């Protein structure tokens, strides 16, 4: 039972999450990320350091160190809901793979309790880290943001080579159900051509039959002020529903994937 004592750093646990994996889920947000996506709606997730953020005029400490056992105490509370809805635990962040042992042991603890597991991740880590979590992961919700290396670098701070390579490896392993997710960001990747390229890539991965298009939203904008940071996408509006439908139609036309708007 050693895995229950593994420590890690999280910044939130959110229950009744219904847009991140099947059924009713509890999301554990791990702190720390390798990317710096300009549209990120959880900017407080990016630094691994424990920070202070102003929320509605009050200073709030972001980040706490916890054991797997402590997290599981909360995750267990909604077990009856998971059973009814086919839901479970979802790891999110940040990038969970920056804390590979903690992520692995959280997933392991859930599996040992018979709870379904999912992870939202960009796969931006050495494959060895991914290999650690795969045996305990039912659904891998993998972000692919852009097929163009330079544009990816410009908007997220890192090129996309490692992620694309990892996506191929995860798919080839056959150890988890891989779902590709694309945040649709105006001025970055919201043209039909850009989305089509991602869809083609996803379609080429063995075992992948689903892609989610997640429309950009601005709900995280206030947090940038709270962290004393500048929001670079100021003035960019969320894509219109009609545009999202057009993109969905393009995906369906050019791939065999099942495409859904939203998580």
């Amino acid at each position, binding site marked *: 039972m050693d895995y229950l004592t593994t420590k890690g750093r999280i910044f939130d646990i*959110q*229950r*009744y999450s*219904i847009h991140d994996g099947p*059924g*009713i889920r509890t999301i554990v947000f791990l702190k720390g990320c390798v990317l710096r996506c300009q549209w990120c709606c959880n900017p407080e997730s990016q630094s691994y350091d424990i920070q202070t953020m102003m929320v509605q005029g009050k200073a709030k400490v972001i980040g706490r160190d916890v054991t797997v056992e402590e997290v599981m105490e909360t995750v267990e*509370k*909604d077990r*009856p*809901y998971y*059973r*009814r*809805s086919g*839901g479970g635990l979802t790891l999110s962040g940040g990038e969970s793979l920056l804390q590979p042992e903690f992520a692995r042991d959280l997933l392991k603890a859930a599996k040992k309790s018979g709870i379904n597991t999912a992870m939202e991740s960009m796969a931006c880590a050495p494959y060895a880290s991914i290999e650690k979590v795969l045996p305990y992961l039912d659904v891998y919700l993998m972000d692919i943001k852009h097929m163009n290396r330079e544009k990816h670098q410009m908007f997220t701070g890192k090129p996309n080579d490692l992620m694309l390579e990892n996506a191929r490896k995860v798919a080839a392993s056959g150890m988890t159900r891989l779902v590709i997710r694309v945040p649709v960001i105006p001025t970055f990747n919201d043209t039909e051509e850009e989305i089509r390229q991602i869809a083609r890539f996803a379609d080429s991965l063995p075992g992948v039959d689903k892609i989610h298009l997640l429309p950009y939203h601005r709900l995280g904008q206030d947090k940038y002020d709270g962290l004393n940071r500048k929001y670079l996408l100021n003035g960019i509006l969320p894509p219109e529903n009609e545009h999202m439908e057009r993109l969905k139609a393009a995906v369906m036309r050019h791939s065999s994937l099942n495409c859904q708007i*939203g998580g």
Partner: protein
Amino acid sequence: MKKFQTADIPKPERIPRLIEHLYEKMPEIEASRAVLLTESYMQTENEPMIIRRAKAFAHVMEQIPIIIRDEELIVGSSTIAPRGCQTYPEFSFEWLEAEFDTVEKRSADPFYIAENTKEALRQVHKYWKGKTTSELATAYMAPEAIRSIDHNIFTPGNYFYNGVGHVTVQYDKVLAVGFEGIKKEAEDYLALCSPGDADYATRTHFLEAVIISCDAAITYANRYAVLADSMAQKENDAKRKEELIQIAKNCRRVPAEGAGCFWQACQSFWFVQQLLQLESSGHSISPGRFDQYMYPYYEKCVLKGDMTREFAQELMDCIWVKLNDLNKCRDAASAEGFAGYSLFQNLIAGGQNKDGVDATNDLSFMCIQASKHVFLPQPSFSVRVWNGSPHEFLLKAAELTRTGLGQPAYYNDEVIIPSLMNRGLTLEDARDYNIIGCVEPQKAGKTEGWHDAAFFNMCRPLELVFSNGVDKGEQISVATGEVSQMHSFEEFYDAYKKQMNYQIALLVNSDNAIDIAHKERCPLPFLSCMVDDCMKRGRTVQEGGAVYNFTGPQGFGIANVTDSLYAIKKLVFEEKKVTLDDYKKALENNYGQGFDEISASEMAVDIIRSLQSTGRTLSEEEIAAVVREIMNLKVSEEDKRKYQQLLDEIENVPKYGNDIESVDLFARDVAYTYTKPLETFKNPRGGTYQAGLYPVSANVPLGAQTGATPDGRLAHTPVADGVSPSAGKDVNGPTAAANSVSKLDHGIASNGTLFNQKFHPSALSGEQGLENFVNLVRTYFDQKGSHMQFNVVDRNTLLDAQKNPEQYKHLVVRVAGYSALFTTLSKSLQDDIIRRTEQGF
């Protein structure tokens, strides 16, 4: 596996026009019933009361003006004006006369009243002075009970001033044999009476009264037949002419005889529903299991091909519209508590039959469809859920939830059936339950449940602990000692229980007094002929004729009392951060947040009383000056800091509603302080008391009568609603709140519990959203929750509706146990709805 016809049926074109007509103007008060009733009473002065009631009912049926509204397929209107109301002076009238000139302008549920109506009612009211149920009830009450009512510890207002209602009758029986059949039954029972029987006098008079009432209902329907015929003759439109001819045919046949087809079944149902409300003014007369008792006629007509499914749907839609044609004017204070012109006519679909087999049928789906088509507050639509409920039925119900109508409410068979058996119902009867009014379960046609007997404010006895039983300068409760002398939490909690027990006994005293007043002055023969075993026993429901008899007063404020006691336990006795004396001062000073006018007046009353006791008299100006003085009182900076510190400490104490086991189990125990003592009491009809835990919307007006509470709630703000957590205090989302609420013992609160959740529509979007929603409901019920209901609107919509009510005339929200038009609610209630935690976004 059972297959259902689930395909959507398009909305008939007639429906929007019927609704438009119904909502054209402000509802109006009419005098015809009161005038006819009084005429009859004056002619029957020395006859037995039961006969007088029957004759008065018959007189009204014979002469009250009737109308068939444009395009109606189901006819029968209690007033000429759409959504109008009659008055019921035999229960009470003084409040109405006092409010003649304000009733049109008031914020909650205004009514238009014409000058000549006022005059007619003034004349009639002269007769009723000293003859009403409310006056007799007052005479029967213990003085201590009246004092507690005056001090707002509880309010039995509902039945104190009105008829009881709150019943579901044997619609199935009327549909099958008609009132001729029921008359025949009464005649058979009469033939069995022997002059030497001990109860010969009462029994025979009751049965004769039943016969008079049945004849009266038949007469009333025949008047509609004549009217429809004469309208048909003048009608130029061929289609409408044909409809009117069929309406006339229907009214000649039902409710006199059994229904021959689905249309007649609908018409027969409607007359019963309408006339019950003309006999007495009670609300919550609930259609119950409509999909069950109507099904044989649907089968006979629609499944055999004599009528299209579309037309059957149109008829049901017409009934749904008609249920909004009935109305009731309450006094200004009650109107706040029951806001939304609601009559709480609860209609329920789905669930199991008496043999424990799932009873969902095509009509269950069509009920959901009717609510979608008509989209009005009535009926209060509910669905029953159990392990065997078809998934597609719940998905369809979830689709209705998603529209934002605030309906249906979901009920859990798996909790309600055993809780009813625990109250003595047979297994078969318990399985066949339906819901009355907001959330109260009972067996139709066998129960006089007195389901809404009073509201009991559980926060007030907590105030009495701090004041040693004194309220506004008067000793109104037991002296449980000064709090400064209490040295353990147990001592404090014990004092609370003593205050509760004392006040609960007084609540029972007042309810029983009212019960007897209804029995003596307003027995109801028409209602009683459709409830077993009245005819067999030869007694009305008011005299204990029903098989099952209960009295169900509601406690509310569980969340506030739990959070308060828990804070005292932690801060005073465990962490020793404050003393009870500090707490007492903080509460008296409303945590230093200043006094509003209500607190100031209350304090002024204390001061004025003590001045008067010294023989001084004060002018109105002087009194006003005292109030002003108090409102301007400044709390010292140091005290202010102290109070703020206490509020901060309270904020950090765990709260009910966040899935924290120790707090939630404590809440369970706190609920027992109300539910357990109550079940030891008996009512005059030979039944027992059973608690409910829900406030309708009374948590707002009754909160306004409650001082600051130890959970940090400021004076005169709303108390928590139902068994829901305090507004904004549940911060861990809907599953956590549901887990907390499910820790209460819903089984013992067999008069119903009420759990509200509010969702943003995005939480139910797409098929996946519906699935998750259904699973949320299922899981709460797996954990033995009893009832759940939802508001699905976003906050901005509500704020905008507050600003531009004109554009939101049809915006429906779910308030406590029922749906109401948002714009008709008072500002404070609107604010409360907006404040409730918005979940799932």
